[in-house]
């Protein structure tokens, strides 16, 4: 770039093109949506099969969810590595990250509080309401409609839970993450590959 004075029009064009160029690469690769989508999908289907197929009680099957701690450890390592490679930090990236941190903390707290008050029947609908919040907000921030609809879908299934038996609510959880995280995750991955090709 030449170091010289330039006209007002050129100056505005330069500002516009630089702002666009700073944000032209789509930064969300969908990896964590796919990770958590598949982890929750596998855990809920496994718990459903254990309860309906092997007739085990929920207090004997909730252990399958311990698998999420493995995913959490993997996620922490993944984010640490990703941050080392990052050349730029955007405001949207930071906001989306904090939305999901808040979701993680509130979900763990709600699951613990409901469990300790013997309100296990409420766990699945409350989880579905909570899944919808970060999904919807991420969709708005990233301007990505599949996530917005995914969030709305989670809230709809939370209402459907009122008419569904507890065991079958696990299938609603699996359907929710399939629609809200797994499908948008693959779409985000495709979009990321195209934008960074």
């Amino acid at each position, binding site marked *: *770039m030449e170091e010289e004075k330039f006209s007002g029009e050129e100056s505005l064009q330069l500002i516009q093109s630089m702002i666009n160029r700073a944000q032209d690469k789509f930064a969300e690769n969908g990896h964590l949506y796919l990770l958590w989508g598949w982890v929750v999908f596998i855990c809920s289907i496994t718990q459903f099969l254990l309860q309906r197929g092997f007739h085990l009680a929920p207090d004997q099957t909730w252990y399958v969810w311990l698998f999420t701690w493995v995913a959490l450890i993997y996620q922490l390592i993944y984010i640490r590595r990703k941050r080392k490679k990052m050349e*730029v930090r955007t405001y949207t990236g930071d906001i989306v990250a904090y939305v999901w941190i808040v979701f993680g903390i509130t979900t763990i707290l709600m699951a613990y509080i409901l469990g300790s008050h013997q309100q296990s029947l409420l766990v699945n609908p409350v989880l579905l309401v909570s899944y919808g919040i970060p999904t919807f907000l991420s969709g708005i921030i990233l301007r990505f409609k599949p996530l917005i609809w995914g969030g709305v879908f989670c809230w709809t299934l939370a209402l459907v839970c009122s008419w569904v038996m507890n065991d079958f609510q696990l299938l609603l959880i699996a359907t929710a993450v399939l629609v809200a995280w797994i499908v948008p995750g693959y779409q985000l991955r495709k979009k990321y590959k195209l934008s960074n090709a």
Partner: protein
Amino acid sequence: MFKDLDPILHSQLRLAVVSILISVKEAEFNFIKERTNATAGNLSVQITKLKEAGYIEVLKQFKENYPQTICKITPAGVKAFESYVNSLQTYLKIKK
């Protein structure tokens, strides 16, 4: 005609750097270099000028044993950029 425009910002490369930094939270030297197509030497000189004017903050650190330069716009830089754009708009309106 451009007497009201901030001379620090009214230079192609410095304006490009500030425009990039206004739209992100922080960026590495190499990211700015790639986006502006500038040479490392020229970019380094202009970044120092912006830093001396108090428009940007420059943080030097090590990442896996390699030096890394991170740039971030300051509140003074944001204010200067806003008044630069305002003056430019006023000038362009008068011209029309």
